């Protein structure tokens, strides 16, 4: 990783829906300046947006770090809780723990994590109740 990479970092604030998506748009803007194929830009932007929204809805806040390297893009999403109780269940399409209010806002369809998995080459989740969540996504260029 050393020097030949770009590191982008974003602070995610819990329940700040007005700013949700800013990290994903900024990463998209940067990728369009680079020699990344359009469909990969799209994959990264969508996966990151889903992850960002998840953090805004469910977490108590956290950070997103994106590393753009010549051969791959890594996205690390880390929040401070409340954590996912059953990761396997959370990965199922349509499963959601979002509140009625969140659903009325058009979120919480239970597609967040499944979509993230679909759009990236590798997704790793570490979480547990009361522990916060760490997600690493990799897209190979």
């Amino acid at each position: 990783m050393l020097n030949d990479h770009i590191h982008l970092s974003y602070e995610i604030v819990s329940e700040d829906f007005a700013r949700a998506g800013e990290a994903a748009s900024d990463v998209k803007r940067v990728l369009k300046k680079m020699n990344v194929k359009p469909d990969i830009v799209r994959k990264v932007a969508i996966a990151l947006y889903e992850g960002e929204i998840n953090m805004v809805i469910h977490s108590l806040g956290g950070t997103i770090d994106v590393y753009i390297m010549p051969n791959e893009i890594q996205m690390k999403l880390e929040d401070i809780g409340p954590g996912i109780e059953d990761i396997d269940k959370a990965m199922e399409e349509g499963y959601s723990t979002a509140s009625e209010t969140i659903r009325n806002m058009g979120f919480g369809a239970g597609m967040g994590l499944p979509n993230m998995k679909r759009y990236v080459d590798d997704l790793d989740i570490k979480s547990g109740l009361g522990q916060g969540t760490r997600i690493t996504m990799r897209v190979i260029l």
Partner: protein
Amino acid sequence: MDNFYTAVRLEEGLCRGCINCIKRCPTQAIRVRNSKAVIKTEFCISCGECIRICPYHAKKSIFDPLASLNQFDYKVALPAPSLYAQFNNLGSTNLVLNGLINMGFDDVFEVSGAAEIVSALTRKYIKEHRDRLPLISTACPTITRLIQIRFPNLIENLIPIISPVDLAAHLAKERAINNTGLSPDKIGIVFISPCPAKVSAVKNPIGIEKSDVNLVLSMENIYSRLLVSLNEIKNKDNLEDLTMSGKIGISWGGSGGEAGGLLSDNYLAADGIENVIRILEDLEDEKLRDLEFIELNACNGGCVGGVLTVENPFLAKVKIKRLRKNMPLEKSSLTNYIEEEPYMYWSKEIEYKPVYQLGGNMHESINMLREVETILEKFPGLDCGSCGAPSCRALAEDIVRGQASENNCIHIVRDYIHKLSEDIYLLDAKKIN
């Protein structure tokens, strides 16, 4: 033709090198260098925003002068639907059509008539391509250019049907050849345009090899001549009915009109270039689902908001609504006017033009972007535009591309001068002691 042609030009003598246009340009295509605005044509989408904002009228759209009509033996006028919205108390679009004949044209062919055919083709196209929804309108050439340079993922959503003006030109030329027996080069097909984007699209076509339009006149430029002509004929009885379009066709002149012609509610229509960019971003991120059709117009209000129009776009929309009142739904459609033919579709692929890319490969781009970030830290982040670039980031990128230097930033120069004068003062003080 040049890959990056634009009809937008600078009249150097009038330009004072202010920052209005560089700040307004939605694609950051303009820089001020040596106190004059310079358009980086590969970024220009011919939207005309710089023409609108320039307080010194230094930005212009090129178009053909009225006198250039004389080179043709037979002249056919193609009025854009927005033209009807420029006049008060018309009563009927037919007055404008007869006014154009009275002005010296041999024939008229309503672009709104061709628009009704495009509407019919679009309805059919949407039905047959449900796997590629939502489909995006290609009637506004500025939008297609924007997608081409900035939203490559949406190129496959573009509807590959030729624009109403190109279809009108094709049909008008055919009709003129049949009616007169003249050779095609003696026939002038003359579009009356509300915007520079249509001028650019005629000179450098999108999706087709060549447009059948020979000349493009500016609405603003012929306005007074046409007004005089309308007054000459307005009291005449039995004007020949030259109209070819109904409600669907003339509604294309305002935002939402094209979408209305699809006779479906499952559409979105957005106008104004900044709004359009937001919609395209969301479309690219697949945030807008369950829509069939997206109509996008670069100008506020749609074509009636074109920078070469005369009337206020909001009033213009009211006028279109009034004109529509007594019209049939449509007059020209695929079934009762013409058969579908291959020329009505694009024959050339739309290629992605990655003009924003910094380096030639990933390593180069990474290094250049890192350099941009390093340079950015030296700038104050005011985005003041005094350097001639629209933002500090844009200047940093220009420097990395080798097109500008750090000394273009007046804040850096000012700090340098401060430091220099301090050093001289200290040096003097030492000498005195």
